[in-house]
């Protein structure tokens, strides 16, 4: 195992040494860049015979800092305030160009999964909140510590990313669940537990057609656990407990976008599957299914556009089933099989500012249906 690890280090260094020797003759102020984005939301849930308070929230305020060490080497960090009182590091990575079309990237990296996880600034998605599937199947903003390669194959109009990264923590203070998927189990770069091999994440995007882009993303690996850490490897009972607190996991997303003039359409399908769920559910008193999935399609139309100012209407249909396939003895929760219709209006008075409003209709098989009004303002500069 040790010799394999050293071989990987050697291979990595060999590749790094082959990087091109071009210096970057920039002024000092051009080596730095600073950006911000943020969102403030208002949400009012409405359900028959139930009273809900409205919620107002500074959802996020994010500062983006970049530094260009040289022509070929760059550092980017995103520091995020969530809900006005939580601080997270959302990204912190170094990218170094190894050669044409190949870059080494290492650090805290956004998992390349679907459309919104990597491009989650408020101007990218039309609704006030991020799409439901990009929260509860793909746990945007999903970031983990990893290392890998990324680049463009321009002759084929392809962008690729391939990383080895830590997976989520399936057993500690929180566990996996049907309703939240892996959202609560993200390690977010904080004292990350790696109890086995890293997972593999990859994404391939094709942009060779006019105004159109397609992508496929995958993530495969085992979750991590704190059970049995520091205990003797020879004690079978402990190792058995450790195994029971881990599941194998695979996620796949396919997406497509089309934008021409004022018209745009985006669609994404995401499927998340788990293995060894029966053992895990028994051990962790959890309820994760074998599979969950979701699909959404958004259509947007800018009915007024003049210089940087525009008005846009949009509609989105989402279908999500967080218990697509269950274990034999698992109870079906009908409320986890739902569809969401979202209609809304965006107004951008100038580049960098967007006012959003939407109305959502949530229907599920348990008939515990509800609606939600959302208003928000987003900025980026």
């Amino acid at each position: 195992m040790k010799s394999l690890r050293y071989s990987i280090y050697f291979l990595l260094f060999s590749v790094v040494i082959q990087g091109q020797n071009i210096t970057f003759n920039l002024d000092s102020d051009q080596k730095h860049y600073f950006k911000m984005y943020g969102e403030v939301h208002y949400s009012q849930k409405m359900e028959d015979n139930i009273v809900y308070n409205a919620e107002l929230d500074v959802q996020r305020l994010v500062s983006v800092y970049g530094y260009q060490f040289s022509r070929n080497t760059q550092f980017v960090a995103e520091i995020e305030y969530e809900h006005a009182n939580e601080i997270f590091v959302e990204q912190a990575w170094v990218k170094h160009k190894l050669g044409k079309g190949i870059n080494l990237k290492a650090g805290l990296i956004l998992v390349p999964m679907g459309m919104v996880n990597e491009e989650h600034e408020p101007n990218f998605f039309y609704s006030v909140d991020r799409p439901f599937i990009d929260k509860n199947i793909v746990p945007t903003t999903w970031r983990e510590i990893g290392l890998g390669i990324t680049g463009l194959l321009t002759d084929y109009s392809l962008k690729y990313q391939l990383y080895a990264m830590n997976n989520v923590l399936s057993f500690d203070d929180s566990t996996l669940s049907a309703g939240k998927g892996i959202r609560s189990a993200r390690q977010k770069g904080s004292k990350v537990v790696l109890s086995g091999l890293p997972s593999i994440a990859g994404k391939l995007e094709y942009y060779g057609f006019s105004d159109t882009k397609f992508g496929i993303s995958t993530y495969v690996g085992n979750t991590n656990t704190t059970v049995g850490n520091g205990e003797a490897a020879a004690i079978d009972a402990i190792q058995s407990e450790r195994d029971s607190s881990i599941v194998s996991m695979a996620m796949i997303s396919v997406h497509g976008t089309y934008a021409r003039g004022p018209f745009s359409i985006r669609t994404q399908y995401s499927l998340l599957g788990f293995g060894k769920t029966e053992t895990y559910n028994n051990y962790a008193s959890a309820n994760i299914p074998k599979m969950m999935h979701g699909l959404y399609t958004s259509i947007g139309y800018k009915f007024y556009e003049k210089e940087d100012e525009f008005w846009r209407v949009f509609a989105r249909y989402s279908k999500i089933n967080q218990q697509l396939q269950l274990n034999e003895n698992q109870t079906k929760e009908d409320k986890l099989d739902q569809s969401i219709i979202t209609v809304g209006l965006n107004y951008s008075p100038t580049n960098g500012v967007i006012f959003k409003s939407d109305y959502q209709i949530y229907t599920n098989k348990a008939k515990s249906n509800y609606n939600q009004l959302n208003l928000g303002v987003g900025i980026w500069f």
Partner: protein
Amino acid sequence: MVLILFLILAQVNGGESEKLIDKYFDKVKDYYEDHDLSLKEYTVLLEDKTVKEFYSVKNAKNQVESYFLISQVAACSLGGCTSLDEKSKTLSSEYFDLLVILDESKNIQYLKILDYFSDYGYEVTSKRYLKKFKNKNVCSFFEETDGIDAISGATVSSQALEYTLSLLCEN
């Protein structure tokens, strides 16, 4: 281990400035050879640090027969890619490398993105998009029209590309 990695990276990037033409001369030469054009005498018309180099190429009769540009162009960066502001026109913290070859009347004969470093706005490298510039005159086209429609999601890269091309009219 991390320290060693960073030391190696520092070593790799510690060299002297290199002109873009030194890096990409083979690409220029390939085009001229493939099209049976002369590349015997080329003179720099514009040299902006190490980020922009514009050359005229003369034939045996000492007449300008073509031009070529190798330039680093501002690209989209993380946190938004919607509009090219004045600062972005020269900001090079996110960039791509561009090769453009013009005929004697400054009509675009060849346009290729040699390398694209940024994670955003890479759709400008699409051959289908770049084909739209073929035979456009860098003086009249950008003065008389709104140019080629920017690619949605890659606006800064598209606009910076057009801005760079429009500069060639004056030089």
